[in-house]
């Protein structure tokens, strides 16, 4: 009998769904990183907490679809605020991101603390969206999260050509007539979707790591976009499964931090050991060049001599 058979059905469904979320977050996150918009996901994710709490306050319901709908609206509101601040105040990207991130997260924490201080009935458990807690997921919710993740991956695959073009050279894309702002908004909205879908697993503070760390780690191993997407998805999947397993084994351990730590471990391996781009490979190459210069055997590379 396999060990998996000993686990309850719900645990298996949740684990599979979180794995799908991790995969999709890694894939979608690649274009955030390649377009140099990695921090956009951060602003969106911190805004989600206020959305979760507001959705509960407004509807009195605490089912996952309601709360995540609130999170999505808040994420978009945060992103709209980001665009508005940049556009109308000439504040730079990093500062605008910090403002939106700080203010929206402060609002979320204030709402959450206000709820618990007043002992509002049924508010318990909302704080799980802070750090992520997959054990609380029902299998129906988990399947819905996996479905949205699959749709996000499908969209990226469909628009792979357009997304790559805009991420690499937006000026050329615009000159060719592609609607660059529209594609940018679609990309950011997709990141927001993944941030919201990843919320139950990783929590508002850490979910952004799911859309940033796997793509950065994947870039170490490959020089092409499609393999990078596939690898980032796989790394995200592995990290998500690692987080779920750890929090299933250790009671009360939130899933978010373990997912992020698992992702960080994968990143560390990629950083040190990747061929060519890895730290060790670069060191070896530099030493090799130094040795050849000392020995006088280094000749200019032919294609570089060709200019």
């Amino acid at each position: 009998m396999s060990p998996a058979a000993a686990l309850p059905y719900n645990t298996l469904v949740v684990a599979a769904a979180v794995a799908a979320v991790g995969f999709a977050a890694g894939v979608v996150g690649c274009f955030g990183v390649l377009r140099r918009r990695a921090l956009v996901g951060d602003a969106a994710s911190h805004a989600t907490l206020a959305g979760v709490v507001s959705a509960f306050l407004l509807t009195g319901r605490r089912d996952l679809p309601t709360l995540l709908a609130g999170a999505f609206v808040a994420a978009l509101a945060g992103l709209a605020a980001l665009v508005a601040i940049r556009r109308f105040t000439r504040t730079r990207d990093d500062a605008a991101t910090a403002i939106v991130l700080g203010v929206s997260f402060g609002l979320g924490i204030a709402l959450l603390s206000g709820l618990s201080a007043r002992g509002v009935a049924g508010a318990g458990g909302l704080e799980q969206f802070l750090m992520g807690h997959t054990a609380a997921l029902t299998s129906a919710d988990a399947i819905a999260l996996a479905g949205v993740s699959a749709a996000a991956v499908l969209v990226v695959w469909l628009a792979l050509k357009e997304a790559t073009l805009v991420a690499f050279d937006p000026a050329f894309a615009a000159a060719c007539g592609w609607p660059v702002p529209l594609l940018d908004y679609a990309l950011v909205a997709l990141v927001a979707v993944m941030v919201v879908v990843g919320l139950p697993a990783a929590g508002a503070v850490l979910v952004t790591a799911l859309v940033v760390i796997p793509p950065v780690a994947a870039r170490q191993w490959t020089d092409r976009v499609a393999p990078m997407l596939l690898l980032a998805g796989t790394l995200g999947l592995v990290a998500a499964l690692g987080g779920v397993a750890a929090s299933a084994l250790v009671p009360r351990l939130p899933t978010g931090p373990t997912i992020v730590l698992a992702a960080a471990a994968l990143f560390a391996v990629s950083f040190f050991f990747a061929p060519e781009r890895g730290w060790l490979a670069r060191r070896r190459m530099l030493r090799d060049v130094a040795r050849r210069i000392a020995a006088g055997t280094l000749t200019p590379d032919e294609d570089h001599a060709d200019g």
Partner: protein
Amino acid sequence: MSAVGAPALELHDVTVAYGRRPVLWNVDLTVTAPGLFGIIGPNGAGKSTLLKAALGLVPLAGGSVRLFGRPLAAVRERIGYVPQRETVDWDFPVSVMDVVLMGTYARLGWFRRPGVAERETARAALERVGLADLAGRQIGRLSGGQQQRVFLARALAQAADLYFLDEPMAGVDVRSQERIFGVLDDLRRQGRLVIVVHHDLRTAADWFDGVALVDMRLVAAGPTATVLTPENLRRTYAGHLDVLDELGRAVQRGGRTS
């Protein structure tokens, strides 16, 4: 269909401002195909902005642009563009072939992937710039001149009638410069109009049939021999750098360019 006999490029009274600062002021410029046409002026004179205005990449504060007698949106497929090399991240995970294929994307339209015909177009473009054997290489592992030729190959893959190139010779070794110039010369002979933002006065006289001297305003435009006069150059560079100094340094550079 373009209006018969309409000039390839027509800027009428074009004014562009970044914030409150005007960078181009009442520029009137008409250029007809075929030809190799240089846009020349000091740093910050608005040369690149002029290209971007023609391509619809910056909003016009005033004036209008017509290409082949029609608005840009109607003739986009006939326009090729080579942006400045520093505007993109060369560490981006794409190969030389991937970048050149991007020139075929507009014709492909939404969601369709490049196929055999597009790869053939891209390969032919790479042959023309002499980079066919580097098609599979990641673009960061090229020299500056090779990177510039990749951008040129991408523009060739656009199969356009009117090309805009923004500083294609900046930071490029002599061999690549000659190769690039050879390709542009071929385009001219095939009846195309090639508009080049250029910073090197010394080579300008050799390369271009016509030039426009720009220093926020259009100082002069027309056939190279009649426009590149000491008096016009002095007026173009007056507020920036002594033109004699600039020319002197250009001569000192000899075969090299910065």
